[in-house]
């Protein structure tokens, strides 16, 4: 029995988050389609569904993260699977062209989009594909999406995890946990750049600060330093490298710990500090450079996040964003940094769907009961 009549939006249900580097797309595939519905379903809607669900790669650069798929999800009275797809923002125009070619506008659906690209590409959607975007604030979407995914869980498992024994590399293990009582939390979203939010409730949050040293910086510098082309490639190199050949450590300067200030000899004193020397520059490997770049960016984010947590008096720090995708070097480093520098006061938490919360939040906006709808 419904008190408010909810008019279900027409399929297809998409949520889109157009970031600086990546476009994140979530697609809800209804699994409870009745025969009647099936008959009524227009052809291009069917073909879209088939195209998206039967492929794991789209064009040269589109990818479906199959392992993240949320199955048997009930959304707005419908049951189905939620698919997670990403492609580079550089391919945005090709995507819009595809929308035109598939005559997407004839479906009369609302395309909910968030991220900067929702603004930047709005007129392209209109002029190229006759599509109107419903533009949504990216931080609202991020928080709503995150809370939603956490609440439904990850196919029966918790969405959230942390590292046990973060300060002990041998015994550092990933452990699931629940985010039952998530507030207040410091939410660190690492995309191309970084935004740091203090979240007090679903709708009460503030952006504390941000930094331009983010995932884009890691990849940008890696490309310049090593000639690599992709995030995967950069991470692969980083995993094999040793940053201590690039960074100057406290012990390189003081011969050991700097006791006057309680600094361990193994702490990094100067990122890329060894590279001031011509000889060392000439003998360094690409892998070491990639690793140093990763460690530098990660530690810096950790350091800013930690200061924000202390200033805002928040103990729970949740790291999200696609920088953390397949990036255990960074997640472990962040977990270590939070634990070590706060003497165990702060706890770093991570989420399995890393960079997709904005897109999920956008989709939820489409399904939100509203008077106008």
């Amino acid at each position, binding site marked *: 029995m419904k008190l408010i009549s909810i008019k279900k939006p027409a399929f297809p249900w998409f949520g889109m988050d157009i970031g600086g*580097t990546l476009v994140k797309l979530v697609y809800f595939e209804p699994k409870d389609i009745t025969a009647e519905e099936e008959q009524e379903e227009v052809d291009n809607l069917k073909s879209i569904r088939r195209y998206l669900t039967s492929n794991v790669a789209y064009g040269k650069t589109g990818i479906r993260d199959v392992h993240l798929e949320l199955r048997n999800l009930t959304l707005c009275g419908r049951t189905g699977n939620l698919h997670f797809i990403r492609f580079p923002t550089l391919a945005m125009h090709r995507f819009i062209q595809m929308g035109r070619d598939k005559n997407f506008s004839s479906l009369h659906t609302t395309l909910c989009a968030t991220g900067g690209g929702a603004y930047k590409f709005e007129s392209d959607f209109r002029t190229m594909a006759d599509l109107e975007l419903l533009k949504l604030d990216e931080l609202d979407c991020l928080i709503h999406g995150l809370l939603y995914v956490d609440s439904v869980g990850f196919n029966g498992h918790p969405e959230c995890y942390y590292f046990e024994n973060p300060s002990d590399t041998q015994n550092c293990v990933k452990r699931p946990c629940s985010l039952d009582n998530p507030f207040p939390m410091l939410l660190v979203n690492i995309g*191309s750049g970084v935004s740091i939010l203090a979240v007090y409730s679903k709708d009460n949050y503030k952006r504390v600060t941000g930094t331009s040293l983010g995932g*884009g910086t890691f990849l940008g510098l890696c490309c310049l330093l090593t000639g690599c082309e992709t995030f995967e490639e950069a991470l692969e190199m980083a995993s094999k490298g040793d940053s201590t050949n690039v960074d100057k450590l406290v012990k390189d300067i003081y011969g050991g710990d700097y006791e006057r200030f309680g600094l361990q000899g193994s*702490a990094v004193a100067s990122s890329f500090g060894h590279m001031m020397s011509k000889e060392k520059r000439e003998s360094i490997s690409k892998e070491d450079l990639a690793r140093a770049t990763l460690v530098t960016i990660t530690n810096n984010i950790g350091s800013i996040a930690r200061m924000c947590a202390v200033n805002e008096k928040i103990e729970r720090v949740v790291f999200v964003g696609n920088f953390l995708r397949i990036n255990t070097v960074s997640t472990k480093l962040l977990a270590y940094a939070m634990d070590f520098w706060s003497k165990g006061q702060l706890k770093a938490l991570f989420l399995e769907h890393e960079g997709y919360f904005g897109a999920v939040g956008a989709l939820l906006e489409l399904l939100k009961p509203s008077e106008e709808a």
Partner: protein
Amino acid sequence: MAGHAGGTKGGSNSMDKSITLPPDEIFRNLENAKRFAIDIGGSLTKLAYYSTVQHKVAKVRSFDHSVKEAEGDPLYEISVQEEITARLHFIKFENAYIGTCLDFIKDHLVNTETKVIKATGGGAYKFKDLIEKKLKLKVDKEDEMTCLIKGCNFVLKNIPHEAFVYAKHADPEFRFQNTHPDIFPYLLINIGSGVSIVKVESEDKFERIGGSSIGGGTFWGLGALLTNTKRFDELLQLASRGQHSNVDMLVKDIYGGAYESLGLTGDLIASSFGKSATTDKQFSKEDMAKSLLHMISNDIGQLACLYARLHNLSRVYFGGFFIRGHPVTMHTITYSINFFTKGEVQALFLRHEGYLGAIGAFLKGAEEDNPNQYSWGENYAGSSGLMSVSPDINPMQRARSGTFDMLEMDRLERQLVNLPLLQDPSSYVPDTVDLTEDSHAREYWLYCFEDALDGVVKRAVASQPDMPEAVDRAEKFRQKYRHKLQTLRQQPFAYGSLTVRSLLDTREHCLNEFNFPDPYSKIKQRENDMALKYYQRVVRGLEELSWEQRQFALVRGLLAGNVFDWGAKAVSDVLESDPGFGFEQAKQQLQERPWLVDAYNQWIERLKGEPHKCALFFVDNSGIDIILGVFPFVRELLIRSTQVVLASNSGPALNDVTNSELQILTERIAGMDPVIQSAVREDRLTLVQSGSSSPCLDLSRLDKVLATVVRERRTDLVVIEGMGRAIHTNYYAALSCESLKLAVIKNSWLAERLGGKIFSVVFKYEVPPKGLDQHRH
């Protein structure tokens, strides 16, 4: 200033360089040097030593009064004596010269008992053996950060206008800060290869509260990798020509414009190097260097703000080789701090930042001499001053290699403190006009001082008739001071804010440097003699007047006396051509009432009331001014049962009466005048030293004894007399008690500026706002 051996391209640490510098110009006073300290950084060495300087000083001594002197005998004798004062020398040069410099030091180090040299900085370890071998001194390493903080405390306390804010597009680009009476607590962000963030709470209490590995080494190392450019300076130059928006992903690249709901403008960097994640494009070295510079500066600025906020600190000083006088980095750091704190915190930089480590290491070694018990003063004659490295201002600065930068600090005989009667010591600015900001005034005064130089040289020579080499020395003085004036024309900010006071003080420092300790001593003596003869007549004349008439005559006498000022060109011309120019004539010159600034009526009304408890009188010229102007005025105050403290200069400046001269004069006047005599005997009239040797007056740097006397006697009136003390300085000084500021404007340009004519009178009587605590401690 120093000669140099050309560029240092390639292997900046090679030892085989010879330098064709005139080393005696650089390593001055080495013969008497004791206590050495050295701070060896990545590219620059800073050497510190403590030495004594033998100076000629003019001493006055009273003749024996028991013998009745013949008519025409001078009142006192002047003798030039040698005096030894302490001085700190700091020299900064490129590491390439370290070997040559150590050799020179060894050869010239005559009679030192020093066995150790204090050393700090990353290079101290590297050069340890070399130093020990060459100097035969044991290298004693000191903690770098401790030295840095010690040095920082020292310059903040002892050097006025040490700290400044930097504004690239403003004129002047440097804005100097007043010396705050309490320098603690503050945050020091040292940007070396990495970043250290240190909270300093007191002389001995500091803590490294944080840091970052992204610092100068990151800029240098990563920059070298990206651009294949070796030198730090070259990287900064590249950066200053680049466009970061070609490499960085801006908010507008993501949003198409601003992210309005968060107030993020379109030009804000969303992702540093965010556009370089591609292999299809080439990026210019300039653009990458610029992007890197922004990335690192912003990051440091952000961390600095987070720490400043957490510890609730608003004074944040930046130092380290990343900053060191580079306008490019000072600008990006300033920008970042402004952005992240929305103007709540200002980024502060230090004029002598490069010397902090050396100063601190030196102080560590000199602890037994208690250097912190003394006050020190920057010697303008021996210090190089702040150079602009901005290529627009100083195209030569880029080729700075091979130059030697120097800083000299004189140990002052007296410990200097604030006048306890300042309304707000932290906002007190002694100088009336900041010539760094006022370019018209700057032009005029620089011209004026240059124009007066011939006369000063002439007088200096004339003051030492028995010394034939005085002509040579005077010529050297002329060259030195003219060079300073030329430097200041180019870089008015070289020694902090340029003011008439700093121009005068620089001249005094240069005169002292060439052993002209007191060019006016004979003139002062003659004038004192002459004026004394008239004292009794003047006093008698005043006594015949009615009370009202007498008060006016006293003020006019004070003002007329103040016309006799050799510092003012208009007057020195008259005095030079017409030595008989007398007291009465001076009165004729005075402007008739109403004066330019005329609070006389209020003053008279005040005099009809309760007498003041104690008046502090900052006196000015010798001769007629002090004897026929000030003393009768003081006499009247004493009769009203107001105690009087006469504050005069500790050392000579122009024809200003010095404390030792004033003692003799007072003695003589007491001999003639029972009022003065009993006041001296009963300690109702006291003489104190100001602690200064300047024709101007800085009320934030006064002899500690003066401050004590002022407090003990519950001083409720301050009288400041003369152009130097009441017009060029202190015209706007707000005191917590009543004050009289009076002067005759003896400079037509200045008179015109104030809206009057030459010999206009300023008579300013000020009463502090009611409710102000008159005796704050």
